[in-house]
């Protein structure tokens, strides 16, 4: 069993999801969970049910090293058959280019605090590229402000090429409704919020209706999977574990769980739109996430969308995220473990089918054994930098160095 590696973190990039653990019971459940996850990953086909359960249950996927392996499985992404890095042309003539540029350039807060500006700048450029790449590939998808908060979470955890593949799948499924030309479908999904609250606490529901607070306070929660409002990246990762393993409406159930959790505060507030909107939209940073995740799961089981949808307001609308969810889940059932996928990729060898990359030598080297890569990390990085323009090179080099601290998967994705 591989032991989670502790890495020095000079850039302050501590993206893992382990909270400060209370070590009375010396985390034996964690060890057991790690073992289960590894086993599920190595089963052939991959034991996706176990992975989903692990991602949703206490602690989620626990460590980033596992997230990098499990997230692609939850989305049916083969990490040995990834899309290319976007070329320069990805930025040409895209209708959303300016908006993406604007939103990414000012999204400094999503990057780890200690990260040097040059590194952040390189990642921001990558972020722009991956967003445009996915949008370009699927013309039916429309950019929305907040999409970049989802993309950055993926980019920071798994790196550029995996992020493209994962974002592509997410956009066509879980996020699909938000990406219509209008926000009508998104509004429809927000309409599930009050009925859930009503089922549990009529008084709170009525109070909110009287205040005419609406549901926009939960808009950014929903469409960014809370990435826009949480300041601790580890909390965001924990929620992404949960949502990646869940029904597309789960973020709304969590929103309901959060509002219900704050019931007393809400009822104490003046019954006025502005006051209630203000209170609710400002998410407390110390929420008991594990508890709330458990509650939203319970709410979902007790009041499933189908039951809520019987209510008048929710009937008419057709949600692509919901209607394609079942077939999406089915599609995740037949994945091979990474060891097999890697072998298959190697077997296809230098015929370079899909991997007709701008740096073919590097590509081949990168698909070699990871242990080897780690050992030769710095040489690999230099090789890669040689292939790049002189101006970008230095900054990319800095990022690559950080990536070595993050883990080999990150480096895999850089080039």
């Amino acid at each position, binding site marked *: 069993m591989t032991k989670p590696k502790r890495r020095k973190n000079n850039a302050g990039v501590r993206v893992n999801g382990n909270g400060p653990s209370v070590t009375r019971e010396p985390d034996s459940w964690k060890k057991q969970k790690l073992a289960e996850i590894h086993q599920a990953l190595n089963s052939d086909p991959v034991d996706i049910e176990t992975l989903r359960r692990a991602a949703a249950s206490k602690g989620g996927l626990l460590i980033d090293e596992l997230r990098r392996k499990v997230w692609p499985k939850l989305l049916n992404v083969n990490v040995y058959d990834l899309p290319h890095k976007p070329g320069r042309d990805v930025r040409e003539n895209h209708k959303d280019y300016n*908006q993406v540029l*604007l*939103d990414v350039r*000012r*999204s*400094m*807060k999503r990057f780890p605090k200690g990260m040097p500006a040059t590194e952040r700048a390189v990642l921001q450029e990558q972020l722009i590229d991956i967003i445009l790449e996915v949008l370009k590939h699927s013309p039916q998808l*429309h950019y*929305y*402000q*907040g999409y*970049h908060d989802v993309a950055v979470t993926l980019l920071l955890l798994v790196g550029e090429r995996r992020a493209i593949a994962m974002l592509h799948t997410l956009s066509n499924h879980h996020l699909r409704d938000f990406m219509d*030309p*209008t*926000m*009508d479908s*998104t*509004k429809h999904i927000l309409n599930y919020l009050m009925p859930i609250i009503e089922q549990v606490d009529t008084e709170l529901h009525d109070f909110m209706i009287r205040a005419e607070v*609406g549901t*926009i*306070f939960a*808009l*950014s929660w929903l*469409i*960014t999977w809370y990435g*826009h*409002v949480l*300041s601790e990246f580890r909390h965001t990762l924990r929620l992404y574990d949960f949502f990646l393993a869940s029904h597309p409406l789960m973020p709304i159930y969590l929103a309901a769980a959060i509002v219900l959790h704050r019931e007393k505060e809400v009822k104490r*507030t*003046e019954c*006025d739109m*502005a*006051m209630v*909107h*203000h209170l609710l*939209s*400002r*998410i407390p940073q110390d929420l008991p996430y594990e508890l709330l995740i458990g509650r939203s799961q319970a709410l979902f089981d007790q009041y499933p969308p189908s039951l809520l949808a019987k209510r008048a307001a929710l009937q008419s609308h057709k949600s692509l995220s919901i209607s394609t969810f079942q077939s999406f889940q089915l599609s995740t059932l037949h994945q091979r473990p990474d060891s097999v996928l890697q072998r298959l990729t190697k077997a296809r060898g230098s015929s370079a089918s899909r991997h007709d990359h701008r740096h073919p030598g590097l590509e081949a080297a990168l698909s070699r054994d990871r242990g080897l890569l780690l050992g030769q990390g710095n040489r690999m990085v230099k090789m890669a930098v040689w292939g790049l323009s002189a101006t970008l090179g230095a900054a990319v080099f800095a990022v690559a160095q950080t990536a070595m601290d993050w883990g080999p998967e990150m480096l895999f994705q850089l080039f």
Partner: protein
Amino acid sequence: MAEVESSVEFSSSLTSSTLPPPRTRIFKIIVIGDSGVGKTCLTYRFCAGKFPEKTEATIGVDFRERLVEIDGEKIKIQLWDTAGQERFRKSMVQHYYRNVHAVVFVYDVTSAASFRSLPAWIEECKQHALGTEVPRILVGNKCDLQDSIQVGTDVAQQFADAHSMPLFETSAKNPTNQGDGSYGRGNSDHVEAIFMTVAHKLKSQKPLVLSQPPGGPGGPGGTVTLGRARDDGGDGARSWGCSSC
């Protein structure tokens, strides 16, 4: 370093516990305009007194407020900061146009595109039945970027006149040290003075019905006292009529 915590962040002052006196009137002002023109920075500047080093895309609506004193009366100015991306306007923001007392249209003086969008924003405002009686102003932001100005004062003034709105040019970033210190055309107006001018205008109107009941929560910390902010009809250009909206 000031920063806007998140799009749903609120001027920190609201969390202070001092209760406002009974019947504090609330002026609700909505701030609209293209994405990136500086709506979040302007509202933050007014409510928190500084330029935020980091803003983020505003998703949905966000609001900030500040308690001010005008002619001896304490008034709560509530600024509703909206998302600029078009898709949010249609189905999302409309809920928040209700009971608005004034509208602030913002464009970026370094972006001709943001100026060209103004008719669409005015139309939007019209669709939400914010009409004749609601004071509206036009604000050109980012005046500190003198070298990249794309929208001249003359053009903007013509537009403002045509729509019977007063025009202000300002900078959320650097609101004080431009021009010669006066606030005439071509120089920049102080963000503070702009919003206070709107507040004065609203106060001078017949009494507003909306008021906060006694004992309402929250009391912004920063109270500002401003006598007459400035004469807002002096040169005839700064008219308040709203006949076209």
